[in-house]
């Protein structure tokens, strides 16, 4: 049998990419340039997001299911799978509420073949984080039961109104599930109730997990079921669930799931003497007054404990706008266009000057996302290094750090904002209008 491949190694080694093969010394025998390019390539890989304005389910109801079984005591993730999962879960809770302020979250644990409620479906991040911290002191034990956990999640999401999304995210470290009945039936009911399940596997791909994700996400299991490669990948897979999911065609066309919600915008009061709040019965100074029943609550967003009106601030709504109006991807600029501008528009970082002859090494980037545009893909492949990125609408040039910052944190283009009428639709309403029109066009 011929086991030798063309490269000289064994055939099964062909698919392995060795990072040390990619790196080559430059003319002076130094690695600095190559390392810098690798760092750049890593950043660039993260740059390209899906910027199609999609209709998204902004009001989310998500159940996070944690595997607390024996398999989580494995030490392949540092310090253990168990501790790392809890750390990432805490981070997930923080990020989730930062990006989805008017959404709800609940946590369920799988242990000893049972599903345990860790924290109730609710909108207060500190409660969830407290519950997760308490889990740290416990030890993982027994086998997990996917069916029990899914049934419990289904029960918790049962009352969710039709305008909210129902989602389950499972961190699954085991390779088995210890179920009392037929899990396929459970999956069927989940599908009927429009519950979407995402799974992050810590060990290896499990057929039933793939099946669950495929059936509850209209046949799409590639983007919803992922098995981690390392700690960093684990974090990425888990935090990907923070972005609100795109509404599915089936749901929006049926005009189900779209309706108006009555909400109260309370006014803040400042008091000289403390009084009790209606939500926690604590003595506090100041708070918010429900516009309907005039009861005092201490924190927002919440539901009025007296009349049940959803109380939010307009700033909470504004937090979700960037999901609806994503910033466009910026294009990489090649050396021919790059020479005119010497520093970044926003942070004044001097750009690298064009070398007379460009010594260039190919830096291959594996696992680039599916949303990469053709130009971006070619830019990545060539490892183009003018270090300049251009916003397609305002034509200003930016450095890579500003690119990352603008897309990941700020969601604004400094160039477009700094030009009068550059982003002609800087009016929130008009911009929404356009993005929504595109959305409708996209969906129909």
């Amino acid at each position, binding site marked *: 049998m011929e086991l030798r491949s063309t490269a000289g190694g064994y055939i099964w080694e062909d698919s392995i990419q060795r990072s040390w093969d990619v790196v080559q010394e430059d003319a002076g025998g130094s690695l600095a340039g190559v390392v810098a390019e690798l760092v750049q390539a890593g950043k660039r890989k993260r740059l390209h997001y899906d910027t199609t304005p999609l209709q998204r389910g902004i009001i989310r109801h998500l159940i996070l299911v944690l595997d607390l079984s024996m398999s989580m005591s494995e030490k392949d993730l540092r310090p253990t799978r168990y501790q790392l999962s809890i750390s990432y879960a805490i981070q997930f809770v923080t990020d989730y509420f*930062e990006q989805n302020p008017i959404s709800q979250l609940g946590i369920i644990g799988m242990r000893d073949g049972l599903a345990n409620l860790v924290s109730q479906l609710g909108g207060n991040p500190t409660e969830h984080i407290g519950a997760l911290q308490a889990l740290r002191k416990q030890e993982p034990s027994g086998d997990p039961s996917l069916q029990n956990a899914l049934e419990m999640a289904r029960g918790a999401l049962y009352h969710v109104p039709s305008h909210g999304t129902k989602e389950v995210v499972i961190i699954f470290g085991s390779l088995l599930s210890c179920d009392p009945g037929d899990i396929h039936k459970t999956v069927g009911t989940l599908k009927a109730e429009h519950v979407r399940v995402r799974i992050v596997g810590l060990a290896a791909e499990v057929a039933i997990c793939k099946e669950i994700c495929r059936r509850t996400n209209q046949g799409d299991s590639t983007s919803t079921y992922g098995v981690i490669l390392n700690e960093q990948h684990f974090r990425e897979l888990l935090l990907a669930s923070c972005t609100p999911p795109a509404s599915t065609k089936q749901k929006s066309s049926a005009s189900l799931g*779209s309706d108006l919600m009555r909400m109260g915008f309370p006014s*803040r009061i400042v008091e000289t003497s403390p009084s009790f709040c209606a939500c926690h019965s604590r003595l506090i100074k100041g708070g918010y007054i429900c516009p309907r029943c005039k009861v005092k609550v201490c924190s927002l967003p919440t539901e009025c404990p007296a009349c049940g009106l959803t109380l939010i601030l307009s700033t909470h709504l504004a937090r979700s706008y960037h999901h*609806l109006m994503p910033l466009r991807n910026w294009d990489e600029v090649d050396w021919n266009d790059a020479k005119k501008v*010497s520093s970044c528009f926003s942070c004044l970082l001097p750009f690298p000057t064009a070398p007379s002859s460009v010594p260039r090494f190919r830096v291959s980037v594996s696992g680039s996302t599916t949303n990469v545009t053709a130009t971006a893909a070619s830019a990545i492949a060539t490892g183009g290094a003018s270090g300049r990125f251009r916003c397609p609408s305002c034509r200003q040039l930016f450095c890579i*750090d500003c690119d990352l910052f603008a897309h990941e944190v*700020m969601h604004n283009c400094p160039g477009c904002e700094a030009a*009068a009428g550059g982003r002609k639709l800087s009016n929130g309403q008009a911009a929404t209008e356009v993005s929504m029109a595109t959305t409708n066009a996209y969906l129909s």
Partner: protein
Amino acid sequence: MNAVDGSSHVPQVGFASELEQELPSLLVLILDTSPLGWGTQSPPISLHEAVASLLIFINSHLALNHSNEAAVIASHTNCIKYLYPVPGEDYSILAPKSTVTSGTESSEEMIPNGQSNGDNGTPNDASMYRQFRVVNESVMKQLELLLSGTSTSDIEHNGKISDTTLISGALSTSLAYINRLVGGVNDNGPKLRARILVVSVCSDLASQYVPIMNCIFAAQKMKVPIDICKIGNNTVFLQQAADTTGGVYMHLEHPRGMIQYLMTAFLPDRALRKHLVLPTQSSIDFRAACFCHKRIVDIGYVCNICLSIYCQPPADGSCAICDTIFDPKELADLLKKPVVVTTTVPKTKTKKKKKKDSDATPNFTPGP
């Protein structure tokens, strides 16, 4: 999160390590240079006076710590411009000669020592702290360039003269600048503590709502307080910006005393602020304006797809922004009003009691 959106009024300062107090700080000053905004102030304060005060303020900021840094960005009607530092200039080597061009009133007033009459060693010039001079000269020169390059067509929007400036652009730019200086790779965490001071005269920012909100949330994430020094009418968005990020909002009632406001309220940096009693805003308008009639509402209706706010359920049953057709059943539920049953209704139910009831006072009972 509650602290974020104004639930707790006093900004929470949770990083009280001794080490951090030693950190130098970066001040990014955003100066609103809208000509109309400055021209229509009452009581009047001219841009010259304001800039004079601001330069003293920046100098005192730089004087507090040797490694303190400053940046000045002008937010103009049609562009934004770095007044200091200027891209492409190297500040490590100070030019021996002053670069300020003589001629305009402003520069003569502000920096008398900046006049280089072929004699680069006037006593004032030599005695001035180098860093101060660099900043002052750069700001004055760039401001002059900016204002002399502004024509009337620049301040017109749709044929109408407006005092709008690009605060959102200036905020975005300054955050990116802060991101580079503070977030720069360093083993020992951040090497600078940054804050933003906005000196604003314009009143209407409604068209920049979403970008300004994005900036506010980014600033909050980066723990950068946005201080607002407001001349003229109050602006709701800037109030929210200061409140959300834990900055100081100050409305100048006597703009001519600007220097005093600046020195007392805005000079202390983040580490010092928790020991001071700073001016706070007692009431901020957090209510929302509806998209349909621009009315301020306290109970509104929100489209769950695009989060647009209505003061009443739309008549045609679909969202005006995203064209989503709402579920008619749910809509009917929202429109339902409490039913007040008058005496005429119960008579069909209980015919026997009719005579008794008609004599009695009208019987108001809640409907089913």
